[in-house]
């Protein structure tokens, strides 16, 4: 009984630890912003804590850099289970503008398992609150992939093996005078 009660309380008392693994600060200050009077996430029991040992959720900002990946992993390991990881902002979600730069490993998902993505550059404070609300089940997610086809294509898709083939192969001509 007590156990289920404790588990229930997880969503109502989420202590978060924010780790910037190399972002630009923008998401950081928006995360700080959600603590402040206008947004005040403390009303959902969310509190910022200084030590990962006390944390229930980690808010990651910034891409995973080679320099900080280890520290990020250590911070994640230091958190007691059950734990959630939120990737806040475009860098944490997808690597941002520098996703393939040699200083950058990529999105934080490459280093630690991410539970929720909150895209935005930086996400509005509302978007961050929304992310937390999705996580604790207050609201449903709205995001869904979009696929649009202008026409159905009977044409067989190009395959690299066929590049030098014959017959039905589409001929590729190098554009001239570019």
């Amino acid at each position: 009984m007590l156990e289920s009660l404790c588990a229930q309380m997880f969503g109502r008392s989420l202590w978060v630890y924010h780790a910037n693994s190399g972002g630009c600060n923008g998401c950081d200050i928006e995360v700080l912003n959600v603590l402040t009077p206008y947004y005040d996430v403390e009303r959902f029991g969310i509190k910022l804590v200084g030590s990962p040992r006390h944390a229930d959720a980690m808010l990651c900002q910034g891409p995973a850099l080679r320099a900080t990946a280890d520290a990020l992993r250590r911070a994640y390991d230091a958190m007691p289970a059950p734990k959630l990881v939120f990737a806040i902002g475009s860098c944490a979600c997808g690597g941002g503008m520098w996703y393939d730069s040699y200083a950058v490993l990529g999105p934080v998902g490459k280093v630690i398992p991410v539970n929720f993505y909150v895209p935005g550059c930086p996400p509005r404070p509302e978007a961050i609150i929304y992310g937390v609300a999705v996580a604790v089940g207050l609201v449903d997610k709205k995001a869904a992939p979009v696929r649009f086809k202008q026409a159905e294509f009977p044409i067989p898709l190009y395959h690299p093996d066929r590049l030098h083939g014959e017959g039905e192969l589409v001929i590729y001509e190098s554009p001239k005078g570019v």
Partner: protein
Amino acid sequence: MIARDLFLRLKGSFSSVIQRADLPSDQRLFVFVEPAALKNICYHIFRVFDARYVISIGADDRPYSGKFLVAHNFAFDADHLLFSVLAYLPPEKPEVESISEVVPAASWAEREMRDLVGIEPVGHRYLKRLVLPDAWPEGVHPLRKDMAWNEVPEGLDNSREFMFDDPPEGCAVVPFGPFHPTLDEPAHFRLYVEGEMVRGCEYRGFMVHRGIEKLAESVLGYDDIPMLAERICGICGCVHNVAYAQAVESAAAISPPPRAEYIRSIMLELERLHSHLLWVGLACHIIGFDTLFMHSFRIREPIMRIAEKISGNRKTYSLCVIGGVRWDISSELKGELRHVLDGLEKEWKPVVSAVTGDKNVQARTRGIGVANRQLVKEVGAVGPVARAAGVDIDCRRDHPYAAYGRVEFDVITEQGCDVWSRLLVRMKEVFQSARIIRQCLDKMEEGPLQAAITEELPPGRMGLASVEAPRGESHHFVITGENNRPRRWRVRAPTYQNLQAVPMMIKDQRIADMTISLGSIDPCFSCTDRLETIEVRSGTVRLWTQEELLQAARSKKPGNSGE
């Protein structure tokens, strides 16, 4: 005329070593000299002409001129002049005499140049790696043109530990960072402490390298880079955005229409407002005064909202493209903005008067983190750090850009040199920013937002731009290039210089004061570390003792270049 005068004066002393000089305008001067004479000339400029050191730049110019290029930038603030001394170095042996002995502030920039471009500063007193990791193989320099932006060299050993210096005798080591509640960004300090007293520190920063400059030089185009520049820093992004655009504009002689300039000024000041309020909040949070933290964020919120209404985002305004701006401020928004400013001033005044009378806050900030005039000059500190030490510099007035030449405002200075003075400077600057925005709104005239650019930008031109960020001067250096992108783009954020003052500021203070001292420069590691390297570590801050500084200041003439 100033640029010409200065050039003539310089020519009087160094006529034999000056190869060429470009005077694109009255506010810019590029002098190409023999590499052997660089140190002497820099000494002359820094000590005799009393210029402010800005930054040193190394560039791989081999695909174009077959040589390496090194530039030392200085600013003559009173004369509104940005000045660059350049020298071409032979491709087979890129070495240049270090100027850090005569210009201590150049220490980091030279080490960075050595790491990234492979230009060896000969005679540098502390040649520890600054930006590249110890694991990085020798002789691989990511900023050279033969390296790709996504190339990871062989021989990289991620498991290797940092090579820290030994702590002084009798001192314990307290690590600070990389993740610490007061640091919004990763940075690592190793504090040498004796009891509660900090006796020194070693800084391993440059952990926020994302490869920005390299991306700009190899992947993106002129008009994409402003968006990239903006994301150098999430707080003063617009500053980098504008500075980059202005550097390119100054290189290509494009002048944006007046309305665009006013809008740039307005957005920059909005950014300063939100940044200063943010800083006051964070500083209070650091000293445990959470109520004021909450209230300055509350007061700041309307600014974020109005910025969102104007630009479509609360913080990343994505304002500039080359030759203009993307968003207009309609007359409705003008009214709304005025209203926001009124509310801000009304709310901020009582806060300022409450805080300035607060003994409790003063107890934590007075006499803490002292950076005096001399330290400011030696490390080239800028912005509120300099102004709180009575150094009257402000790029908005000294190197007018955007619409700042057409508005009136006061440059706030304080004499206390400590955290308290920096707090006062920032609190008072809020009112000046509001004043500037009001004037801009009044004077803004109708007109186009972007200058028409009809042909591709000429390659090989150089542009300098200084923009006053909330933290101090942001300096951008651009060499235009082919393929619709610059050849070299160097960003110097204000924290790059200010951070070099931190070890002196926290020396012989308590650990408890370390955080607020560091916080008082409003550190922005993402700005400072914007470079293009992989993990970067073990940059030790050279601890300049007071004697050494004095000595450097008074030192006899540096060794003659002929020797």
